[in-house]
C-alpha cells in the first residue's frame, strides 16, 4: 500500500492507504477530520469540497494519491481557535444553514470564490455555486451569506 503524505490544515500528515482510496476517505477515515462530508459520491453535490493547493475540488472525485505532497485545507482549517473565519461567521449570522450537511462544502466553495473573484454580485454567486447542492435552505440565505462573507474578507 502506498504511503500518502500531505499537509492538511498546516499539519504534515501521512497514512498507508490503497491506491483507490478517495481523498475524502483519506481525510475522514485516516486523518480523522469528519467535517468534510460525502453527500452523493458522484461529483454532483459539493458536500465534499476542500481546497487542494488553494483551489476548490471535490474530494470524492480525487484520489488521495493524486494529492501526494499537496497543501490541503478542510473546513476544520478555516477558524483561528475560537474565532470563526469571516465566511463561517457570515453563514452563522445570515442563517445560511439549516441541517448543516451541505455547509462545509458551501463554505469551502464560497471562500475559493471570494479569494478569486472580486465584487461578487448575486447572479455571479448563484452561477459559481452550481457545484453545490443544498436540500434545505432554498439557497437564498446561502447567497446572502456569501455576499456578506466576501465583503468581510475584503472583496
Amino acid at each position: 500500500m502506498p504511503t500518502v503524505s500531505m499537509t492538511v490544515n498546516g499539519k504534515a500528515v501521512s497514512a498507508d492507504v490503497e491506491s483507490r482510496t478517495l481523498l475524502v476517505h483519506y481525510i475522514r477515515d485516516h486523518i480523522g477530520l469528519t467535517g468534510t462530508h460525502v453527500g452523493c459520491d458522484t461529483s454532483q453535490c459539493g458536500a465534499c469540497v476542500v481546497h487542494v493547493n488553494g483551489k476548490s475540488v471535490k474530494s470524492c472525485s480525487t484520489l488521495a494519491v493524486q494529492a501526494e505532497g499537496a497543501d490541503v485545507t478542510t473546513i476544520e482549517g478555516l477558524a483561528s481557535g475560537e474565532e470563526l473565519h469571516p465566511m463561517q461567521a457570515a453563514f452563522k449570522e445570515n442563517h445560511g444553514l439549516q441541517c448543516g450537511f451541505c455547509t462545509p462544502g458551501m463554505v469551502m466553495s464560497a471562500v475559493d470564490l471570494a479569494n478569486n473573484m472580486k465584487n461578487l454580485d448575486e447572479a455571479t454567486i448563484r452561477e459559481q455555486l452550481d457545484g453545490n447542492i443544498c436540500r434545505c435552505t432554498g439557497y437564498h440565505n446561502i447567497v446572502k451569506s456569501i455576499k456578506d462573507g466576501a465583503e468581510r474578507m475584503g472583496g
Partner: protein
Amino acid sequence: MYGFDYHRPGSVADAASALGGADDGKYLAGGQTLLATMKQRLASPSDLVDLGGIADLKGITVSGGSVSIGATTTHAEVAASADVQGAIPALAAMAGDIGDRQVRNAGTIGGSLANNDPAADYPAAILALGATITTNKRQIAADDFIVGMFETALEEDEIITSVSFPAPTSAAYMKFKQPASRFALVGVFVAKTAGGVRVAVTGATSVAHRGPKLEAALNENFSASAVDGVQIPVDHMNVDIHAGAEYRANLVKVMAKRAVEACG
C-alpha cells in the same frame, strides 16, 4: 472501485512505457470522468498512469497567431488565461462554462478530448476552430480526431500532449445546458476563419460534428437569418428524457443563430 496499481511518471516517455508495461492500464488526468466510471465499475483498469506530474504537459503558449494548450491544463486555467482571452475569447468563455467550479479546477482539455463525450464542449471547439491535436506520436487534425461516440483516433497507449488552435477572425459558442449536469443539451460553435465559416454541433447526436449545411448557408450570407433556411435533419438526433428529436433539431438552429449574432 476495484484496486489498481498507481504510477506517477515525470515524463511523457515514462508514462507511455508505464502504460505499455501494464496489463490493462489507463492514463489519469483530472479524474472527473474516469474515476466516476471506475466507481460504477464500468472500467476496472489494472493500472492508472497519472499524467499530473508531467511538467511538459501543462501550460499555454501563443505564437504565430495560434494558441497551444498543454493536455493537462485545466478548464479553469484556460478560462482565466489572458492569452486565450485575447486570441480566442470564445474558447476562454467556453472553458469557463464547463461543469461547475470544482470540475473546472480538476478537469483537463486532454481528458475531455480523449473521452469525447457526445455532449462535451471541447470536441465542438476543436472542430469549429480547426485545431490540431499533438500526441507523443503524431499530429492529428480535429476532423480526423473525432471518430464516433466516445471514440477518437487515439491508439491505446497514445498520449495527447497539446492542442493547437489557430485564432479565428471571430468566433462564438452557444450552449443550451442540461441544467442538472451542465453538459450541452445542444451546443453550437461558429467560427469565421481564413478558410471560411466553420460550424460544429455537440450534444445533438451521438458525436460532435461539423454542420456542412449551416456552413454553406453562412459562407454565402453570414447572418442569423441565413440559418432560417437550413433544414436540420431530425433522424439522427438524440432522444432522451431531457429533449426529443424535434426539440433538439430546433435548438441547433436557435443556438447557431445566437452564435452568429455573437460573432458580429
